[in-house]
């Protein structure tokens, strides 16, 4: 068993609670820093995707996981950030300036979307964000003088203060840097009155209001911040994907972002990262399975003479290669997670950790939701 002894308020506020935390995060930091030296270029590139998705995850986590406002339109913010950044660079602006402007623009657009959304709740808000994303996607395809429409827009490698991030390795570190900055800043907001107000709004708007939280202001801040972070991810995304086209920023991508935070675990930054790992690595894993399952099962069939195994193998491979299967698998996982593990991957991890750290006193009911009355009845 491991106890946490609190000696000062300061300890409560720190990002890392104790020496054990510092040790594990330090180890993680070292691992992440030397990873590009250990991996093939391909995997370094895939890990950069994890970092970009991680930033997207933080953006979604602030709005959905902490403030409780569900958006199905965040691909639009990613797109605005990506196109704006690419456009500014094409027009000769220094990289840092282009990035700052792209983030400012998405922050402003988040604020504008957020304003009418303040009067809406639940599913209506979600539909409003969806409508916004559809409109923005239309703008991407029609506003050809800026986006080049379906002809697409080429994005060069980032050049910052004269240094070109041309290799997978250098771009990996660039993404890692921004992920760490975003995590740090978000953690700062979360451990201060701003973050507590967000959580309060999520858990009980009426109580938040009677504690003095101005709902409209804090929802707007959440919307703007979330959009701004998404815009930052968009700028990196533009470089990573190298070629922007309107059909990248679809509803499916927005759904994937939602999947990311739900699978990762709502209401924790760890969840945003775990979800990012999941979402970024699932497609390559499916691709690997698509190739390796038929091969290995064919080899097995050849070795044992059980020909039906080979047939099954190629059928599975064929199925995985079909278009739309990936989206289907995402959807299936989303449904399974909501049904079986509503706390997400991070919630599962916490349970495992609690089980071992309190063994043999683990109480199965610790994570049970204890609300038995209806929300609509609570005011009376």
């Amino acid at each position, binding site marked *: 068993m491991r106890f946490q002894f609190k000696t000062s308020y300061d300890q409560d506020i720190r990002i890392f609670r104790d020496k054990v935390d510092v040790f594990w995060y330090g180890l993680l930091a070292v691992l992440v820093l030397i990873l590009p030296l250990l991996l093939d270029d391909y995997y370094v590139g895939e890990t950069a995707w994890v970092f970009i998705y991680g930033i997207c995850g933080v953006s979604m986590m602030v709005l959905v996981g902490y403030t409780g406002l569900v958006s199905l339109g965040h691909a639009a913010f990613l797109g605005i950030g990506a196109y704006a950044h690419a456009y500014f660079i094409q027009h000769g602006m220094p990289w840092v300036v282009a990035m700052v402007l792209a983030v400012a623009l998405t922050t402003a657009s988040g604020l504008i979307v957020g304003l009418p959304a303040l009067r809406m709740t639940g599913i209506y808000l979600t539909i409003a964000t969806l409508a916004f994303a559809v409109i923005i996607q239309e703008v991407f395809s029609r506003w050809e003088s800026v986006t080049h429409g379906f002809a697409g827009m080429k994005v060069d490698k980032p050049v910052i203060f004269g240094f070109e991030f041309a290799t997978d390795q250098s771009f990996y570190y660039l993404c890692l840097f921004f992920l760490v900055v975003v995590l740090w800043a978000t953690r700062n907001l979360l451990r201060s009155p701003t973050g*507590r107000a967000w959580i309060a709004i999520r*858990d*009980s708007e009426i109580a938040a*209001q*009677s504690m003095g939280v101005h709902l409209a202001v804090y929802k707007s801040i959440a919307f703007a911040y979330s959009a701004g972070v998404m815009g930052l991810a968009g700028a990196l995304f533009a470089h990573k994907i190298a070629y922007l086209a309107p059909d990248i920023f679809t509803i499916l991508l927005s759904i994937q972002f939602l999947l990311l935070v739900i699978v990762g675990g709502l209401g924790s930054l760890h969840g945003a990262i775990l979800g990012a790992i999941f979402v970024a690595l699932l497609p390559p894993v499916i691709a690997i399975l698509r190739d390796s399952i038929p091969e290995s099962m064919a080899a097995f069939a050849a070795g044992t003479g059980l020909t039906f195994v080979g047939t099954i193998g190629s059928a599975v491979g064929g199925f995985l290669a079909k278009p739309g299967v990936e989206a289907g698998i995402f959807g299936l996982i989303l449904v399974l997670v909501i049904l079986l593990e509503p706390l997400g991957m991070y919630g599962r991890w916490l349970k495992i950790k609690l089980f071992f750290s309190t063994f043999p006193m683990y109480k199965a009911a610790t994570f049970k939701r*204890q609300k038995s009355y209806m929300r609509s009845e609570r005011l009376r």
Partner: protein
Amino acid sequence: MSLFSADNLSINFGGIKAVDGVTFDVAKGEVFTIIGPNGAGKTTIFNLMSRIYEPSGGKLVFDGRDITNVAPHRIAALGIARTFQNLELFDSSTVLENLLLGRHVHRRTNLVENFLFLPKARRAEIEDRRAAEEVIDLFGLAPHAETPIGSLSYGLRKIVELARALCIRPRLLMLDEPSSGLGAEETETMARWIGDLRRRMGLAVVMIEHDMSLVNAVSDRVVALNQGRIIAEGSAAAVQNDPEVIRAYLGG
């Protein structure tokens, strides 16, 4: 001079007069209790006082200031705190985090200071924790400070909600059925707290309550409400023995 007064307060919900011309005032340091059958309009009065509901008529005055048109999120900063009939805690947060929300009206840092977590933000956080910890100690909640609300007993949650309201450092405290869902022993504890708070801090308390032992133990003045109207006013005993009150409870 009264600290708070409601003058001819009214609200309609689609033709139903949930609160119908209610007038009362509460003096500093007084425990003022509202009783009445279910659906009488008691909680609605609280929601009007919190400015969550828009009155269709009447006036609210706090500390000599007309608050009838004050925005709901400004009520706490004026010094008015409340609890809720069915608990409105932030369930995923710990006891300490819930109490820290009570410090929201006392925050001194802006968004940028929070974002960068400047030294000023750190100092403010420490100060907020110190203030919250005082309230935690007052209620003996120290063993539960880091416990998520979800794993507390109902009785403890009621105490946490009271503690959270106190972190606002209010001058007027509104308690909506503080004993509902509590056992006899827990109700006695609650009675002791309410008495204590009034004595120690000079708080004015407006309380909605069904449990007559609690009403008798702490109330200075009692009104009975039925169908949105005040039907009796006076000492706890007088109101309970009022024939119209008895009829309201029996006949509705």
